[in-house]
Every structure is written in C-alpha cells, then in structure tokens.
C-alpha cells in the first residue's frame, strides 16, 4: 500500500480546521469569527478537491502518515462512503456558518463576549474531528477522533450557561464517555486477538469466534450510546433542544453522524463475515422502535425545538434500518450497493434537512420570542421563506419526491422487498405518515393569520433566511442524485461481497 496522488489533501482536511481553532484561540474575540469563515471556505475547497481526486482516479485516496505502511504506520483513507460524508458535512457547515453570523456575529462596536468566540472555535473543532472520523483507517485513531468530537460537541450544548443546559451537557458527556470506553475496550480486545488495528488488515484477519463477537458487541453498544439510538436516546432531546439554534443544528445534523458512520465502518468493512443476520435484525428492530417512539413523542411536544429533537430520535432509527437490509442482501448473495447508498443518502438528507429545521426554529423563536407550537400563528407572514424551508426539510424527512429522503427510502424499500423483509417497509411507511402529521401540524399553525395588532419581537436578517432555505433546498433536491451517471458511494470500496461469498 502506498500513498496515492492527492493523499495529502486528507491531511489538510483534518489539519486546517484544527489550525483554525488554535490560531483563533490566540487571536481571540471578533477575529475568531473572521478566521472561522475563512477556514470554512478553505475547508470546502479542500473537500471538493478530495471528491474530484476520488472521482477522477476511481479508487480510494490513501495517505500513509510519515510514509509508514500499516501495520507499523497509520493510514488515512477516503473511499466513496467517506467522500460523500465529507462533502455533506462541508455543505452543512457552510450553511450553519452563514446563519451563525446573525446569532453569533460580533460586528464593529458590539462588545466581544465569550459565547460567540466559543461557538466559532467549537464549530471548527467539530468539523476537524468529523473529517478525522471519515478518513481515518485505524480503530484507535477513530477512538481519538470520537473523543475529540465529544469534547467539541458537549460545550456546544451549554453555550448559554443556564442550569438546565449544563445538566443536559453533563448527561450527554457521561453517556458519551461510557460509549467511548466500551468502544475502546472492544478495540483493545481486537488488538489482543489479531495484533492490528488497521481496518483493512483487520478485515482480512478477523474470524467468527467469541472474542470477535464480544468486541463487536461492546463497540456497537458504545457507539449506539453516542448516536442516541433507542433505548439510549434519553440524553438527546434536552441537549439538542436546549442549545442555541446554530449549535442544535451542528449537534443534531452532524455530531451524531460521526458515531453512526463508525458503526457503518465496523459492520460493513471490518467484520462483514462476523455479523450474523439475527444481530443485524436486532439493530434494525431498535431502529424501528426508535422511529415509532420518536415520532409519537414528537407529536406530543408543545415546543418546536423539542419536537425537532424528538424527530431526530426517530430519524436516527431510519439510519439503522440499513443494516438488516444489507445483511439480508449479502446472505442472499445479491449486490448490497444500493442499500448502502440508500443509508448514506438518508444520513445526508437528514443532515441538511435537520440543520435547516433547527435554524428555522431559531428564526421563529427570534420573531415570536417563544417556540410554543400552539401559538405559532402569524409567523408565515413575517418569515415566508423560513416556513417554506421548514416545510421542504419536513418533506425530505417524510420522503416526498424529489427529496433526498424519498430517494433514500425508495432504495431501502426496494432492498426490503428484494430480501422479503416486508416488516421494515411497513415501519418506513408508517414512520413517514407520523412524520407528515407533525410537519403539517407546525406548518398549518404557522400559516394562520396573526391576531390584529401583533408585532414581531425582533426582525431577522435576510441572509439568515437564505441560508436556511439553501440547506432545505439541498435536502429537497438531493433525490436528483438518482440522475447522476455513477454511484460515488461505491468508488474505492473493498470487494466485500466477493470476500463474504468465498
């Protein structure tokens, strides 16, 4: 294995955000915001360059740190899965960056405060950690990346320093720390059994035996706690709903995807021959329960941000329906590529839609001074663009064509039909129905005319509304990816299928 041309870009994708954090820490105050925006533009360019390299070469982009090949050295590796996630995160971070200029901007003349300064640095730190999760090819580097992600995500919850958000942050931290220790324990057991932590080498060496099952169970449960899959979701709603809107968008759209992506890596790349169909069914059942419980509880919420947070609990469930479908296709010796693409597309469309919805809720809060769903009337007159964006994001969550959610569910549904696992299809359709109920509830309330003499609590800059609408449109039009000539997700994937069949 050697470094491929353009491999250095992977290092830059991780390094540039962290350099931004350190320089921003030194510069301080309002300079942190300018630096963050500059870093975001630079990072987006790097990500696009990585995607270009991958598509042109048609193979995974690899960089060996210090020129040492695994098992002695550590490799960074970006295949199709990594690159679509890198791109999605870069786009969402851009949208959030533009939006946050309104909430966390310190224009000339306004005194510098600590919350904006912290926000911009943590935004870059979350981005750098996520990029490391997507490109690292080594289980221990992934552990460090996950911890960095936790350390960057937890303070975002309690930026305003209120007691209840501090409590939510501490609960989140305790769940996340237990999760990462379980993951580390699993990784240690794998090292003890096979003597390597490199994903590619481990995939060749791994055998179905008790120590592998124990390690797989420990790592999966740890990652589920960090991803907040039912029944380990209790920390998520207070943490995501209590944070400022821009921070909620980062947490709900991006941070939970890091640990989910690691489950995908483990189950699809590290131990495809070890995972049994019944284990995958169990994971799918937890996902199905999350969809039903999350959606029903979301319907009962009185506050908009809590509703969106519970909707995240439900949408996380969809992300885990991919595993029984992929396992079923592999067991039937069929190509599981479409189901994997469906799962990734679900993650990306949820990331863009949920960021847009949380930021829309933030604007609604600004205009009304509260976010009680029962009293939303009049908002659509002041913020027509934002309510349209909320509806478009909601349409993607429901799965209406041509949204990304529609295409993702279509790919997953056809996999469910092919493998004769009709129960997952029922769950997906039922979940979509429940989702549509609460999206329509919110939009209908917002469309009602305001009472006479009502004035908005404050005005909202236009660029914030555009950033929300932009992200919602990304999610809504993502289904057009079906028209692309090739499937980017499949580039540079190891030939897992052939290996399983032998």
């Amino acid at each position, binding site marked *: 294995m050697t470094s491929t041309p353009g491999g250095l870009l992977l290092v830059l994708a991780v390094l540039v955000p962290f350099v931004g954090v350190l320089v921003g820490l030194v510069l301080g105050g309002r300079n942190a915001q300018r630096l963050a925006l500059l870093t975001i533009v630079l990072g987006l360019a790097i990500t696009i360059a990585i995607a270009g390299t991958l598509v042109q070469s048609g193979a995974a982009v690899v960089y060996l740190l210090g020129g040492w090949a695994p098992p002695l050295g550590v490799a960074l590796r970006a295949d199709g899965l990594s690159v679509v996630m890198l791109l999605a995160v870069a786009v969402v971070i851009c949208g959030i960056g533009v939006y946050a200029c309104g909430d966390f901007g310190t224009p000339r003349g306004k005194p510098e405060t600590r919350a904006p300064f912290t926000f911009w640095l943590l935004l870059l730190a979350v981005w750098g950690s996520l990029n490391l999760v997507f490109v690292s090819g080594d289980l*221990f580097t992934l*552990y*460090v990346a996950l*911890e960095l992600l*936790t*350390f960057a995500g*937890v*303070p975002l919850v*309690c930026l305003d*320093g*209120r*007691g*209840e958000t*501090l*409590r939510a*942050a*501490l*609960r989140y*931290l*305790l769940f996340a*720390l*237990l999760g990462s*220790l379980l993951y*580390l*324990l699993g990784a*240690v*057991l794998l*090292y*003890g059994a096979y*003597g390597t932590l490199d994903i590619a080498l481990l995939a060749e060496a791994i055998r179905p035996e008790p120590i592998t099952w124990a390690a797989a169970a420990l790592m999966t449960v740890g990652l589920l706690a960090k991803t907040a899959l039912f029944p380990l979701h209790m920390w998520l709603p*207070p943490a995501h709903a209590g944070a400022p809107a821009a921070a909620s968008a980062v947490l709900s759209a991006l941070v939970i995807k890091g640990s989910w992506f690691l489950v995908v890596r483990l189950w699809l790349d590290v131990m495809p021959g070890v995972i049994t169909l019944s284990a995958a069914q169990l994971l799918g059942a937890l996902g199905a329960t999350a969809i039903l419980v999350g959606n029903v509880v979301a319907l009962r919420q009185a506050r908009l941000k809590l509703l969106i947070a519970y909707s995240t609990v439900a949408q996380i469930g969809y992300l885990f329906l991919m595993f029984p479908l992929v396992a079923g296709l592999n067991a039937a010796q069929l190509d599981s590529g479409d189901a994997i693409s469906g799962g990734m597309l679900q993650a990306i469309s949820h990331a863009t839609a949920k960021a847009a919805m949380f930021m829309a809720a933030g604007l609604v809060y600004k205009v009304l001074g509260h976010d009680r769903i029962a009293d939303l009337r009049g908002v659509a007159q002041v913020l027509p663009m934002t309510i349209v964006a909320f509806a478009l994001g909601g349409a993607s969550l429901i799965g209406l064509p041509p949204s990304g959610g529609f295409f993702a569910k279509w790919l997953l549904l056809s996999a469910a039909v092919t493998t004769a696992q009709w129960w997952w299809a029922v769950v997906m359709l039922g979940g979509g129905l429940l989702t549509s109920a609460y999206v329509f509830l919110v939009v209908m309330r917002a469309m009602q005319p305001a009472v006479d003499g009502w004035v908005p609590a404050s005005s909202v800059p236009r660029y914030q509304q555009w950033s929300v609408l932009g992200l919602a449109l990304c999610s809504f039009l993502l289904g057009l990816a079906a028209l692309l000539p090739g499937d980017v997700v499949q580039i540079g994937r190891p030939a897992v299928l052939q290996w399983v069949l032998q």
Partner: protein
Amino acid sequence: MNAATLFGLSATALIGVGLFGLLVSPHPLRKILAFNVIGSGVFLLLGAIARRGAALGMGGDPVPQALLITGIVVAFSATALAVALLLRLFDATGSVTLAADAPTAVPTDPDNA
C-alpha cells in the same frame, strides 16, 4: 496462571466495578469516578496485552503501551471537562443532581436550597 492472565482478570474486575458504579450511583461525581475506574481497567487490559504480545528479549509490545499513554491523556481531559461542567452546574443551580425534573430556578444561596 501467569501474570498476564492475572492482570487481565483484575482488569475485568475493575471494568465490572466501574460499570456498576456508573449505572447505579446517582451522584455525578461518583459517576465520573466510576468512569475513571472503568478507564483504569481498560488500560490495565492494554498493559496485559502488551506483556502477552512481547517479542523475544523485550518487556512488552510497544504498540499497546503507546495506545495506553494516549488513552490516559484522553481520559484525563474527559475527567477535567466533566468536573468543570459539574462545578459550573453547582454554581448555576446550587445542586448537582442530574434528574430531569429537578428545579431549574436559581437559588441564590446554596445553603437555603
């Protein structure tokens, strides 16, 4: 039973004790301590694996030892972050309970809370 096995079993016991403490005790500080006990168990296991995988003429496999040091640094920063959050929580609310239905109002004097 050789030394590596003994250390491995002790590590398992530590992880078990820590897990029990983390799940059962309601006080956040105890939970943070329990997290550190689990961490010690995992690090001890790494040490045992390093000893077991030692090449001829060496005290241990250097890779798990390097991982161990990194792991300790990460666990230390995690503990520091958790304790800092706990102190801020006490400053803000005058109590350190994690229960969701705890009073969110700010009692100005913790002694009267």
